[in-house]
């Protein structure tokens, strides 16, 4: 552990990195996504890039793969400065990227997607049999059950991600960049992926890897690099560091200080859910939520922890009025809660949806306009919006919610993910609800802003709101709520105080391993 070992960054002593970013700065609109970042990627090793959301990880990956061009600085391949004008030409030089957002055409088959833009032809016609053989070969490494002729739209998200990975494998990349490749994969699929990564390394491929699952990412890392606020704050060999070091570098402080505990002052029951059943929207006839009962009292923060497919999303969507209930009853302050989103909001329920971009924000509007969108009629005098009351309400909300923005008139797109999330929460709070529902409020939010988001949530509970939120992160489930419900296969399998449960117990309950339902495993 001498300084010499780590003296020149992640690349092994003396060797020239395959790919190097040199003093790269990238500016979007007026925001700096990267500020003078340098990073070398070594062949035959996995370089893991850590950083909060908005730290610039994805931007750096896009620049390395020429999806984006740097504003200043440049990229070196084998020690030579290069400038690819498109991701295609970077791919032709052996640099492939698997995007965080899937870039498949759902209307085409797996094999058509695999060879899209790189079709093999014979006398000008598609060589389908060759496509099929090559596709079989590469899919065999990932998931034998996938038929190359299947339409991508028929695949689960995880399988689609495997297709995306297969496409990169087919291009025989020298540098393979994976941006959140495991976010939709099941545990066995992740194992397969890691096996593929270690095969690739043995072949001398340089792998660059980004993931929100810090532990998982650290387990595949040979070299680590940490970005914060668009700057490279630390690089090291993975063997020399641990998780705590990484988190400290990412956040700039210790994680424990992020979530202070408080004692709730509980009021009467505000939200009462009784034996709620919700049909699975993708396969009716199956129940996503199967007889869930729960209560949330005024001033209380209740967390729902569950894995993907546990019914946590469907439960919240049903409470918000986006999915119909198959049976059961929901009461808000004793009154039956029915109708669409609008009615429920009128009754005192507010929802912070899971997908901020799709369901939470209007990108063409300003921070202030987004904030007041749900409560605009409150500011209407006769028929017109009273700009002065609106502006002052927005301004005070920006302060309360600690939104970092140039001002209420700043375009919403100029904010970081965490601050955009605060705007969505502020919008919900401005409707003056009794019950606040938050579906995965920390999704896509950086570690630092997460603390702000949860502080904002806690503040609402202190004001006497009943807060119900869902999470898929064990850390949050154990730290944030006053009471924790664990959901597995549509049922509440535990209703506990977070202090009374261990992380292992939480995981195994959520896995459904401790329930009698185990026999029904599909």
């Amino acid at each position, binding site marked *: *552990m001498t*300084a010499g070992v780590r003296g*020149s*960054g992640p690349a092994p002593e003396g060797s020239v990195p395959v790919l190097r970013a*040199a*003093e790269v*700065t990238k*500016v*979007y*609109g*007026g*925001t*700096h996504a990267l*500020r*003078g970042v*340098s990073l070398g990627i070594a062949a035959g090793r996995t370089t893991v890039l850590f950083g909060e959301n908005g730290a610039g990880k994805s931007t750096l990956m896009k620049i390395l793969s020429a999806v984006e061009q740097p*504003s*200043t*600085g*440049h990229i070196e391949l084998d020690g030579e400065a290069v400038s690819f004008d498109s991701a295609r030409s970077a791919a032709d030089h052996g640099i492939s990227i698997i995007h965080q957002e899937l870039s498949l055409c759902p209307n085409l088959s797996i094999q058509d997607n695999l060879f899209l833009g790189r079709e093999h032809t014979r006398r000008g016609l598609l060589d389908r049999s060759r496509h099929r053989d090559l596709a079989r070969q590469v899919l065999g490494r990932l998931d034998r059950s996938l038929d190359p002729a299947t339409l991508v739209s028929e695949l689960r998200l995880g399988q689609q991600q495997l297709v995306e990975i297969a496409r990169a494998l087919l291009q025989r990349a020298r540098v393979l960049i994976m941006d959140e490749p495991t976010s939709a994969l099941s545990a066995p699929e992740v194992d397969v992926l890691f096996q593929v990564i270690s095969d690739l390394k043995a072949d001398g491929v340089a792998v660059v890897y980004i993931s929100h699952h810090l532990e998982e990412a650290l387990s595949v890392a040979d070299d680590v690099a940490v970005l914060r606020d668009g*700057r*490279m*704050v*630390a*690089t*090291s060999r993975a063997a*020399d*560091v641990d998780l705590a*070091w990484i988190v400290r*570098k990412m956040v700039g402080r210790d994680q424990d200080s992020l979530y202070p505990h408080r004692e709730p002052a509980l009021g009467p029951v505000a939200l009462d859910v009784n034996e709620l059943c919700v049909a699975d929207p993708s396969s009716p006839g199956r129940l996503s939520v199967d007889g869930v009962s729960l209560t949330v009292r005024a001033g209380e923060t209740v967390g729902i922890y569950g894995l993907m497919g546990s019914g946590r999303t469907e439960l919240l969507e049903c409470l*918000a009025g*986006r999915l119909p209930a198959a049976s059961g009853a929901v009461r808000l302050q004793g009154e039956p809660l029915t109708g669409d*989103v*609008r009615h429920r*909001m*009128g009754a005192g329920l507010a*929802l912070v*949806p899971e997908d901020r971009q*799709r*369901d*939470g*924000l*209007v*990108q*063409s*509007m300003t921070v202030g*306009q987004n904030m*007041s*969108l*749900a409560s*605009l*009629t409150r*500011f*209407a005098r006769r*028929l*017109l*919006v009273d*700009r002065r009351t609106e502006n002052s309400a927005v301004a005070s909300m920006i302060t309360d919610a600690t939104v970092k923005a140039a001002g209420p008139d700043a375009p919403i797109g100029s904010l970081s993910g965490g601050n955009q999330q605060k705007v969505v929460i502020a*919008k919900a709070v401005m*409707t003056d609800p009794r019950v606040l529902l938050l579906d995965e409020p920390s999704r896509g939010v950086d570690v630092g802003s997460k603390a702000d988001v949860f502080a904002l949530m806690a503040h609402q509970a202190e004001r006497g709101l009943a807060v119900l939120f869902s999470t898929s992160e064990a850390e949050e489930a154990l730290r944030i709520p006053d009471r924790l419900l664990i959901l597995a296969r549509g049922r509440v399998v535990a209703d506990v105080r977070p202090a009374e449960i261990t992380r292992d117990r939480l995981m195994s309950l959520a896995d459904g391993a401790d329930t009698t339902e185990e026999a029904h495993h599909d």
Partner: protein
Amino acid sequence: MTDTLTKDHELVTRQRQVAAVQARRLKTLDSIFELRAFIALGVLIVVFSLLSDSFLTVDNLITMTKHVAINAILALGMLLVILKGGIDLSVGSTVGLSGVIAGELLQGLHLSLFDVVAYPRVWAVVVVCIAVGALVGAVNGILVTRLNVAPFIATLGMLYVARATALLISDGTTYPDLAGSPATHNTGFDWLGQARPLGLPVAVWIMIVLAVVITVLLRSTPFGRWLYATGGNARATELSGVPVKRVKTAVYVVSGACAAMAGLIIASELTSAAPQAGDTFELNAIAAVVIGGAALSGGRGNVRGTLVGAFVIGFLADGLVIVGVSTFWQMLIKGAVIVLAVILDQSQQRFQRRRAAASAVAVAEEEPRRGSADRAPADDTT
């Protein structure tokens, strides 16, 4: 290693200086782009007045503005629909339908049940026609919001249905005389199209009032904000508790009512109503909105731009006629102008993004750089 770093730094400094120059240049370009529709209008006026003595006369300007007004009234309704992210192809047919209904009512409504002929007052005729236009819009709105028909298809369907209704009611013939008669107390219909209170045609006054009302609607009412939000992201807007379906339906209703108003003005102007009136007017209205800088995807656009767009189209068309350009060339020029407007709009958007980026890069130079120790490998590991 040190060599590489120095080289990197020099390169970056040079790139920043270039960015600073670029940012200044883009700023100038951007301000020119912002006013492009006004500039285009100015150019049109200058060119045509050089080519023809009769172009820049008060009489001609008023006549042209009257032509503009009819398209502008349609375009203002269309603007609302386009802001929502929709389109209304049925307005031209609604113009025809509205005129025909005015014709039918003014010529006397034969009520077979009582075997009498009723002559509604002119104000009642106007109200009925606008209500019919609103009804066409309501059908569009219901098709789009309740039955999930794509706006293009729903309003294309209504384009045919409304036109067919006009032809069926009139049996394909023109109502020749809408003057009414004192005996039946229904005179005065020609006021809409022929009177000039304070020197301006009624159509122009209607355009002005409508422009003011819609400006206030868009800028200062919850409805206006909801409309922009719906065009920007309908899902998020709906989840904010906004009655998105009602907002969507309402814009079609307003657009239909505007079209009916335009139909009345045309019928009044000619004191006759043809079922074919207003054919392809929807295209001119869409063109005006687009030239005015609105995005067909919704969420972006304003009244001022749309009005200027309508003036550009109207003055261009009338100017070409005055100068004596053939109809075929007129069509070609109009098409080119519309496409050019959209190209300019796209490049302005690109300019704005590049300008913001360039100035941010340039500013980065002054920003104090964090100590390089910060970027060096950490040494606080235990």
